[in-house]
């Protein structure tokens, strides 16, 4: 109850600040489990994705996030575990859990996942960092699940790192056509292909305006 109210409040607030518009370019909303992979520049990235998803999809879509960040204090833990239902990944080197197994289990429970394959927030001038291998391993573990690219535009300008006041600029979330892991496609080729696919979507989202 209170979780649902918080979720609605967060989405409404995000919409108010960013006027966010969701553009479906290449696939329609679908409640089947999917892996959404997006560029990562802000802590609020997945909130924006979540905001543009239709409510039934929002309920079954879970962000994959670092446990160190979301378990740091009670408030974050409440939002991370209860409101966003994040799939929390232990990012320490000495971890004993297998992150791919945890994500695959979430997909098996009919959840969709939001993944940031750059692995960390992009603070530089480059549009997109190289992808970490997690996306490949997950695609290999569940090869029949569609991988849907999402390009988030402008959110990094709303609230850059180290700033406290958000600037109410307009943001766009563009959802592109899905890809799947090719048969026998190796790790390097797949990570390059998926990254270029996301960059192509970024170029397209700008052309559309």
């Amino acid at each position, binding site marked *: 109850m209170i979780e649902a109210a918080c979720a609605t409040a967060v989405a409404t607030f995000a919409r108010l600040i960013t006027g966010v518009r969701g553009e479906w370019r290449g696939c329609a909303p679908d409640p089947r489990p999917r892996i959404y992979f997006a560029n990562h520049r802000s802590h609020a990235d997945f909130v924006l994705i979540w905001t543009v998803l239709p409510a039934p999809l929002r309920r079954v879509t879970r962000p994959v996030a670092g446990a160190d960040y979301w378990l740091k204090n009670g408030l974050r833990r409440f939002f991370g575990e209860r409101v966003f239902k994040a799939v929390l990944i232990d990012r320490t080197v000495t971890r004993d859990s297998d992150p791919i197994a945890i994500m695959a289990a979430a997909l098996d429970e009919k959840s969709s996942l939001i993944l940031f394959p750059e692995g960390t927030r992009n603070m530089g001038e480059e549009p997109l960092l190289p992808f970490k291998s997690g996306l490949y391993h997950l695609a290999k573990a569940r090869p029949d699940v569609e991988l849907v690219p999402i390009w988030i535009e402008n959110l990094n300008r709303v609230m850059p790192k180290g700033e406290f006041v958000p*600037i109410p600029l307009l943001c766009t979330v563009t959802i592109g056509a899905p890809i799947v892991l090719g048969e026998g496609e190796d790790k390097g080729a797949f990570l390059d292909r998926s990254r270029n696919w996301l960059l192509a979507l970024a170029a397209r989202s700008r052309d559309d*305006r």
Partner: protein
Amino acid sequence: MTVTQQSVALFSGVGVVLVVASVVGYVLHRRFSLESPSPTIDNLNSRIKAWWMMVALLGLAFAFGRAGVVVLFALASLAALREFITLTPTRRGDHVALAVAFFVVLPLQYYLVWIDWYGLYSVFIPVYVFLLLAAIAALRQDTQHFMSRVAETQWGLMISVFCLSHVPALLGLTIPGYAGRNLLLIAFLILVVQSSDVLQYIWGKLLGRHKIAPELSPSKTVEGFVGGVGTATLLGSLLWWITPFSPWQAAAIALLISLMGFFGGLVMSAIKRDRGVKDWGWMIEGHGGVLDRLDSVIFAAPVFFHITRYWWTV
């Protein structure tokens, strides 16, 4: 007639026009869109629908009087500024300057308009903000494209906040024999300028042959321009009874603000072409962004304000 009666008469007139437009749009939709979907007719109908919303909003603001109008245009400025800055390549070093622009400059400008401090609101952004925002940006020591970043932020404030705030500022003018009726000046300005836009569109669709600025806007034609500005001027002179002007004066002023409105559309189109976008935003269905709808009012408002202030106030 009292100001309320005149306002009601005006809004009723606009309402009748919109009813006719809606009926025409519906008939066109039934006749042509059912067999094969037509983007032009769909766009026409969403534009008409958005006009209903905008007229209703303005009517609501009028009902609340001065406070309503100041708040409405402050919100319009906020929407316009966010559209402008969204398409401006600012950097992290601009963050504080932008926060000041949105959360200090904009509210303060409208507060000054609200308390009617003409001496300050007429120079606040062009002088003080002009100097101060550049200084704030300089303190962040990011020199890349510094000049163009600072200049574009200032331009955004001038267009979205300073110029637009001259619409509610009309309420502060003291015109002999016109006390308590200043809302009608706003009605005159908006009615003439927006009709000019719509009439240019209609004349252009009916008779348009020769393009004025094909590089900027393929829909602007000589025929549309002459027909639209001409009929808007005529409309302005017919509306003299709601203004402190004589019919001839009203016609001359209507001509001038229609021309300014035309230039506004042209300039704002040039910026859009440069940025590679078709619309400023997506807030008003069928029209695009707030800036797409208000570009003509933005260019006409300060000129209308100063003409009225110089020749008609005491």
